[in-house]
Structures are given as C-alpha cells and as structure tokens.
C-alpha cells in the first residue's frame, strides 16, 4: 500500500502579512495543490483543513474539488477544525458528489480503501476538548491493513492550544498501521518505541506564514505489509518561499553581506528582513540597494527600526558646518538614547545630505 498524506491546504486563506502579494499567495496554494494531485499513489489522504474556512467562495471550492479530482485514485477528505462538517459547510458543495473519486468522511467510519481500511472521524466543531482519535478504536476493522486519519493537536505540540487534543500514543491505541494527522503546519514524524513512524503530521503543502518550520511538503507513505514499519518520505510541494532574515549588522561591510544574501533569494519569495545593529554611513548605500530589490520579490518587508546610526565615524564632520552639523549631532545623541524617531530622522538627514552631495 502506498499513499499520499497531505493536509492543511487552507485554501482561501488570508495572507495579510503578504501585503499586495496576498492574491498570489492564495493562487500558489492551488498551484501546489495541483502538484500534489499530479503525484502517483494508490490513494490520497487529505487530513483536514482543506479550506481555511467554511465561508470561502464556492467557486474556490469547485476549483479545489476539480484539482483533487485529477488525482489518479481515490481521495479521502477529512473535515478539520477550519472546515468542520456543519450545515452550510464547504462539504455540502455539489463538487463532492460530482467526482466519484472524491470521498468526504461524513461520519466516524471504517472506510474500505485500496488494500485495506481507513478509520476516520470528521470534526464537527471548530473548538473541542475531545480527542478525535478516541472513537477510532471502537470502529470495526476487517482483515487487512488498517490506517487512520484524524485532525487535531498532538499533546506537546503546542502548549497554548487545547483544541482537539490527540494523545501521543493515539496510533497504538487505535491499533492502526499509520495515523495520518492534520492541523500542525510543519512536517513532524512521531516514532514509536521501536523507532517506527506510525503517526505523522504531513504539514501544509504550501507555507502559510513567515517563520513556519519545515512546511510545503506532502508525505509519501509506503506500508510494506505485516509488521513492517511504514516508510515515510517528505516530498517538497511548496512553490513559494517565506524567508525571514533577522540580520544583525555591526561593522562596516555587514550590510553588504546582507545585500548579497537578499540578492541570492529566489524571486517567488516573500521576504521579511529585520535589521538591527549599527548603520555605518558607508552602509546606507547597501541599504538603499536592498530597498531597491523590493520589486524583485512577490513581497518584501524591511524593518530597520532597530538599526542605530553608528557614532564616531566622522560622518557629521563631512556635513556642512553650522546648523546642519549641529542638528546631526543632536539627532545622533537622541538616537543613541533609543529615540526611534530620532533614528529615522538621522537616516533621513543622511539621505538628504547624500542627495546634495554633502
């Protein structure tokens, strides 16, 4: 048995941090979804949160259903906490009846799948403190390989959330060969005492935000049969990268290095660059060059508020004598005391001075 395990497509999600690239981000999720369905396997498991919300546009639901229908095998879709099985939910859309290879899990059931049985329980609520895997053990299981699919938070994953908690030993308790999980956006494999991976988060197929670790993957799972452990392989599907560069510049030349790093990034990137440290007058040019690279990327956020103009470089001495130089010194003193506006003002003054060739 060989299948694909994906989840958390979050189709239609908001991408406020992507600025003007939000639409592109949403489009990329469909694109990478198409990458998933283009892959070959016996069947495809989508372990919840296919959609960001039950209120997403129905055209998007139709489009997603069509993408899924292109998979060359049955697709089993589990309603998750973002798209719980409720009246008026996305799961009432006609597309799920339109394509025979699409199967929405609408009740706790043992579903016959190629080569075995799939145990699954759909989520019906956004928030719940019940373990959705507890019902799995009670489901009938015919002969053959049994796997399961669920959606929730494995204990220890996120101490801040208690929604749909899943026990660390859920796979053993459910007595399944593999438990495909959704909800956590980073690919995470859970090995049992014998080192066999019988439970895993595949992570989202397309990164959703800055700082998201190891996302943009689908899991290819092979079950050799018998007691042999599953063979789990992460396959890259994401089309966008979300680099979060937190760079500290200290000495003159550091900014040039940052510029080079930024320049080396792929164009289909959403970049967040956070700079802190000391800005030397000579580095303002590199900073300007970084600014100018903004157009290269889908989106770029540059936060230089933690930069402090470096003192003692004699920059002020290069300014015209008199009020300008005195003003520059006063601003630098205020900036050194942590006055953020003074930092901006000093950088502004540097820009002005550069413009007049001073």
């Amino acid at each position: 048995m060989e299948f694909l395990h994906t989840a958390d497509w979050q189709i239609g999600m908001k991408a406020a941090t992507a600025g003007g690239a939000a639409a592109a981000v949403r489009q990329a999720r469909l694109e990478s979804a198409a990458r998933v369905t283009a892959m070959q396997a016996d069947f495809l498991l989508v372990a919840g949160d296919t959609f960001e919300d039950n209120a997403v546009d129905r055209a998007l639901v139709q489009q997603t259903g069509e993408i899924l229908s292109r998979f060359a095998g049955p697709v089993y879709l589990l309603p998750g906490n973002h798209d719980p099985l409720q009246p008026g939910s996305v799961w009432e859309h006609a597309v799920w009846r339109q394509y025979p290879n699409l199967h929405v899990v609408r009740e706790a059931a043992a579903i016959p799948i190629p080569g075995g049985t799939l145990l699954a329980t759909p989520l019906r609520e956004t928030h719940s403190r019940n373990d959705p895997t507890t019902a799995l053990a009670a489901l009938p299981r015919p002969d053959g390989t049994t796997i399961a699919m669920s959606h929730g938070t494995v204990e220890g994953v996120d101490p801040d959330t208690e929604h749909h908690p899943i026990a660390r030993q859920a796979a053993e308790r459910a007595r399944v060969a593999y438990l495909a999980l959704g909800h956590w956006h980073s690919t995470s494999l859970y090995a049992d005492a014998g080192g066999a991976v019988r439970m895993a988060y595949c992570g989202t197929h397309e990164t959703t935000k800055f700082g998201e670790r190891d996302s943009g993957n689908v899991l290819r799972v092979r079950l050799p049969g018998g007691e042999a452990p599953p063979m789990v392989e992460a396959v890259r599907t994401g089309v966008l990268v979300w680099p979060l560069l937190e760079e500290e510049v200290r000495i003159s030349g550091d900014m040039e290095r940052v510029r080079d790093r930024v320049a080396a990034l792929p164009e289909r990137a959403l970049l967040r660059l956070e700079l802190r440290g000391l800005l030397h007058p000579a580095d303002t040019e590199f900073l300007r060059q970084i600014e100018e690279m903004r157009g290269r990327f889908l989106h770029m956020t540059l936060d230089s508020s933690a930069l402090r103009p470096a003192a003692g470089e004699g920059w002020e001495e290069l300014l015209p004598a008199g009020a300008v130089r005195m003003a520059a010194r006063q601003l630098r003193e205020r900036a050194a005391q942590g006055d953020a506006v003074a930092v901006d003002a000093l950088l502004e003054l540097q820009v002005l001075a550069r413009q007049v060739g001073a």
Partner: protein
Amino acid sequence: MILRSLEVDGFRCFDRLLRVEGFSEGLNVLAGPNGAGKSTLLRALRHVLLDSHGLTGAGVRQAMMPWGRTLYPRIRAEFLHGDTEWQIEKKFLSNAYARLERKESGAFRPVAEGREAEAKVREMLLAAAAPKGLAGEEHLGLLQVLWTPQGAPPPAAWNASVRTTLQESFGAALRSPAAEQIAALADKRYEEYFTPTGQQRKSSPIVPLEAEWTGLQREVQLLRDQWRRAGESREILATLRAEIAEAAARLAVDRPRLEQERARQSAAAEAAAAEAKARSHWEELSRRVAAWREEIGAEGRIRRELAEAEALHGAAASALREAQLYLPKIEELETGLEQLAARGADAKAWPDWVRWRDLSAALQGLRGQLLALRPPPAASMEEARKLDQQIHLKRAGLEAASLRVTLTAETALAVDADGGQRTVAAGETLVLTGPQRIDMRIPGVARLTAASANAHAVGLAQDVETLSKRLSALLQGETLAAWEERFAAGQQWQREMDGLAAEVRPLELRRAELEQLAERHQEWTAAAPDIETIRAEWRTGKDALDAARGRYNLAALTGAEASARTQCDGLRAQAAQLAARLTQHAAAEPLAGVEVRLEQAQLAYVGARAQFLALQSASNGDTAAWERDVRIQQELLSRKEVEAARLEGELAVALEQNLYSRLAEAEERITERAASLAAHRRRAAAIQLVRATLADAQKEMTAALPDQIAGQATRYWRRISGDDSPAIRIGADSWAPDGLAVPGAVAALHELSGGEAEQIAFAARLALAGQLTQSSRQLAVFDDAFLATDAGRAARILEMLAEAGQQMQILILTCHPARYASLPEVRVFDLPALQGH
C-alpha cells in the same frame, strides 16, 4: 546699495543745482570746511531714500528749503542695488513727486512713481515707512548701522530689520550652500506632509491613506461581523439539525406508543366501569346481610336485657315494701329531732332575753332621774345666756356714761344718798353714781345735787332694767348659775340614756319573740340552759334519722321500681318488634340464600377489579400530559425547522456574497495600508524632527550672535586701542555696544572718554557692517566720526577703513581731508569746489 551720484537743487544751503558723481565702490571722502554742507548732502541722501515726497508742514519746510528763499527741494540719487542700477528722484513741498527708474540697455527707464517708488526703495534698504513726518531712527533700516551720524552716540538698540538681517547674515555665514540645499530639501519634504504652521497638509499622502484605512476598518469590521455571524449560524444550525433529528426520532417512537396507550386507556375505562358496578352490587348485598345479622343479634341481646331488667324490677319492688313498713319510725325520729333543734335555738337566744331585760331596767331608772331633775330646756337656756350677756354689755355702757360723785369724809358724816342714809367714816370715800342726777344730803351740812344732760345714760339704764326684768322672769326666781348646773347634768344623763336606748333597740325589735321565749322557758330564769347537752342530744337523733333514711329511701326505692318496670316494658316491645321483622324477612327470602348471592357478588367484583388494575398498571402515565408533550415536541420541531430554514437561507446569501474572500482581501488591504501609513507617519515624524532640529540648531547659533558680534567688535577695538584692551560688551537683546567688560565690572559707554566711545561705536558698527555686507556691497558713511580720536588711533582706524573698503563702499565726510590722504585708492570730493566756490 552703492551710491553712484547725488544731485540736489533748492535744498537748504544748496539753492543751486549740485551734482556729486563718480563715487568709488571703495573709499570716498567728501571734504569741505565747516558749514560747507557735507552733512546737508548726507541728509538730502537720507530724504530721497527714505522720506515721503508728500511731506508738508513748517517743520519740513524748515528742514528742507533754503533759508530766505522760496525754492522747493529736488533730490536725485543714482545707486546700484544687487546687479541693477537705479535712480530715485523726489521733489518736495511743491509739485512734489517721486519717481524710480531702472537702468535698462544703458538708459534709465521709469519703474514706479509716488508711494510705490518710495516703498520699493525702502524695501531695498530694509527700512520701514514713517507713518507721519520725517523718518526717525526706527525707520532707517540698514542705514542705522551703516551710516554714522556726526556727534551722535550709537543707538541703545538696533532696529528690528537690522537684527533680522544680522540673524540672516550670521545664519548665512554658518550655512554653506550645501546646508542651504539640505534645509531646502527638508522643507520640501516637510511640505509634502505639513503646512507652514505645522498642520497636516490636505495633500499629504497620509490623508488619503488615513481615509482609506478608516474606511477599510469599517469594512473589515462589517465583514468580520457578517463572517462571525455566518460561523455562529453554522454552529447554531448544526445544533438545530442535531436537535431536529433527535426530536424527530423521539416523536417517531412516542407517537405509536401514544396510540397504544390511548387504546389501553379506553379498555381500562371500561374495566373501571364494570368494577364499579360489581362493587356496587356486592356492597348492596353486603349491607343487606349485615343489617339482617344485626337485627338477629339485636333481638337476642334485647331478650337478655329483658330478663335482667325483670330480675331488677322484682328486687326493687321488695325493697319498696320493706321501706313502707319502716316509715312511722322515721317520722318519729324526725319529730324528736325537730324538737331538739327548737330547744337548741331557744337556748341560743336566751342570753338575748336576759340582756334585753337588764338594759330595759337601766333605761327606766335613768328616765326617772331625769324627770326629777327637770333641767331647763336648751332653748330657754340659750335665751337666758343671751339676756345675761346683753345686760353685762349695757351695764358697762351705763357705767361709762353715768355721773360719778366722790366724797371723802374728813370727819365722820351721815349722808343721805340713793334714797338711804349711811355713815361715812373719817377718811372714807363715798362714791356715788347715777345716770343723770345724783342727790345727796349731808344732813345739816349740805345738799348736793349733780345732774347731767346725757340722755344715753338714761336709755342704757332703762335697757338694763328691762333686760334684767326679762331674765328674772325667765329664770323664775332661780339664778343663771343654778340653771347652768342643772342643764349640764341633764345633758349628761340624756347622753347615757341615748347609749342604752341604742343598745336595747335591736332587742326591742325582737321583744315579742323574747317575751315568748321567756314564757316558754321560765325554768331558765332560775338556771341558764346547757346548750352543749342539747346539741349532743340533737346529734344522736340526727344520726339515727340519717341511718333510717339511708336504709329506707322511699322515694328512691319507688323511682327504682318504676324505672325497672318501664325498662322491662320497653324491652319487651322491642323484642316483639324485632321478632316480627325477622319473621317478615325470613318469609321473603331465607338468610342463607342471600348469603350465597353475596359470596357470588364478591367474586364478581374481585374479578372486575383485577382486570381494571391489570389495565391500569399497564398504562404509562397521564395520557393527556403525554399528548401535550408530543404536541409540544411537534411544535418545537416545527419551529426549529423554520429557524433552520431561515439560517440556511442566511448562510446561502452570505456564501453568495463571497464573504470570506472579501474579508481576506479587506484585511490584507488594511494591513498593507497600515504598514504604508505607519511608514509615512514615521517618515513625516522623521522629517518633522529633522526640520525642527535644524531650526533649533539655527536658533541656538543665532542666540550666540551677540557674543560673536562682541568678539568681532572687540578684535577691531583692540586693533585701535591695543591688544590688552578690555572686551567690548554687546547687549544680549539690543545687540548694540553698551560698554567695556573691565575685570569684575562693566564700564558703560558714557563713563568712557569721548574718543574711546566713538572708537568703540566705530568698531561695533564695522563688525556689524562686515556682516551686513556679506551678501552684497553696501554704503557705509562716517560723518566726522573720529573728531575725538587721537592721531595714533586715527591712523589705525584708517588702516581698518582701508581694509573695509575692500568689502563695502565707504563715504567719509570730513573737514580734515588731509587725515585721509594716505588711504589707498580713495576718491576725494571737494565740496566747495563742486559748488563752484
């Protein structure tokens, strides 16, 4: 300005046209003896540059017109300002005019006339217009610094235009062209966001962003609310659907159960009716048998009671007969006892008789004594007392009113007086009294008559006599004292009699009784009765009587016999009645037959009851309540289905509106706008701070100006007076020299020598002039400014003037031209020569 030429005509001492021209842009000396008109020329230049051509009045005429001539002044000056040659011409007092011309293509062309022409020139000199009259110190503009009038001390403070120009001048000196560009760029950027007064500019990029952001906020809020409501609707709908399914399932079970229950309830009702009927029949038979049995029992009981009653009646009749036989004995006992009781009562009353007898005797004795005494009646006694008192009163009055004759015998005398004769012994005194007349005779000696006319005494004497007669008649020969004694004894005895009478009165009322008592028991007069003996006899009799009565109570025995007889009669009648009824019942149906039927009815009832209970116990409760419950369930179900349909409709509408996409896009837009807005705000704040900091720096440097001026002036001053000279002090606010900073004190200008004062003023003016001429050359005038300066210092001043001539046009007015002969490239104008003298 650089002066090119000056032309005056009809002005003070210049009654003819005078034109001075060819001034150097450096050093110029206008020389002439005292009164030649040097200062007049300078004044003419001031009038043409600063004063209004329309001025009139005696003062103006005196200041301008030549002495003793009716000539009206006309003045014209040519000068360079900036890069342009100008010419200003004014005529005063008559046909007055002002005209400003500008040299264009080698020839002067008119630019403005009248006030406009004057205003333009004043603007070039930064001078203010005098509102009335000639321009004063405050209207001089830059000339206040650049022109040094003859013999006048420096002003206490420079005027505003000078100060502003100096600020700008020093500022310019501190800012390079690059700095100016930076400031200009900062201003330009600032103006993108702010108005000159610091308000946010309407065209600021922040304004549309804020408006858009605000609009987006509202839109997002609205969409979020709609989205949240849609989510809530889904949750509610899910709950409703679950509830509807549950309710429908419950109804599917409850409805058939209700139907079964209804059938069961109907059968139970029928069984209940059958049970009631059987129970009624059974109870009716039970009552009948019970009544019958009751009557049988009653008959037996009555017969037993009759037998007992008849036995009792026999005993009572026997006792009654015995009592009747003993009755005379009882009556005898009763009579004896009554007699004893009467004797006892008499014995008890006997002491009363004895006492009545004794009291009556005592009373009789007292009454006899009183009769013998015959005391006067109380009224008579009272009257006698009253008469006696009146007599005493009258006599006292008579004694006072009567005549009194006193005769004291010296020898024994016989005297006839008061109708009698008496002998008065020697030495004895005889007093004679009479009411109205006293007659006395001493036989053989004399006859004495005393008479009085007082009639009252006679009346009193008559009253006494009358009253005495009435008293005497009342007392009937007794004295009043005897009366009083008898009256008192009579009173005492009467009181005793009253006491006895009161005591005997109640006994007297029983007199007849007591007399009969005494008559019945004369024997007790000899010996008093023994009441205790009588009482003992009575008690013995009483005991005997009580015993007889107790044993032979005839009334009670008679009543008992009658009662027993009546009871026997009643019981016999009842027994007969019951026996008749029982006979009647038995004739209708024997008791055994009724009892068989009762047993059957009981069995029938038990069966019906069991059937009813069986049906009742199978019931599931109150069918009505159950039906109500089912109906409510149905209604609730209907309502929920309606609500669910409504929510589904709402959700369908919300989905058609692509709510989530719109919300996502709006939130993304707002985030982007917020970032953009924040960036703009940061930039605006930054540029605001840059500009403010530049302005502050500028102010700070300007604030240091007085020190800079003082420094420059001191350098000039030390060149004149020596390096060890004290520093010149410049007023912090006036920016004018106000003295020297000598160690530990300040030496004011007026405390210095005239030479030092004019040298300090020169140094300060030169320092300021140096600043004011930084951007363009200006004319500096010194009108005999060094009159008090010694030759040594004057030489050093000349050196300084020579240097200053490189930067400004200098015009020195002097009557000692030789002093300035050594100046390099100096142009000297000999005023008398120019005048053709």
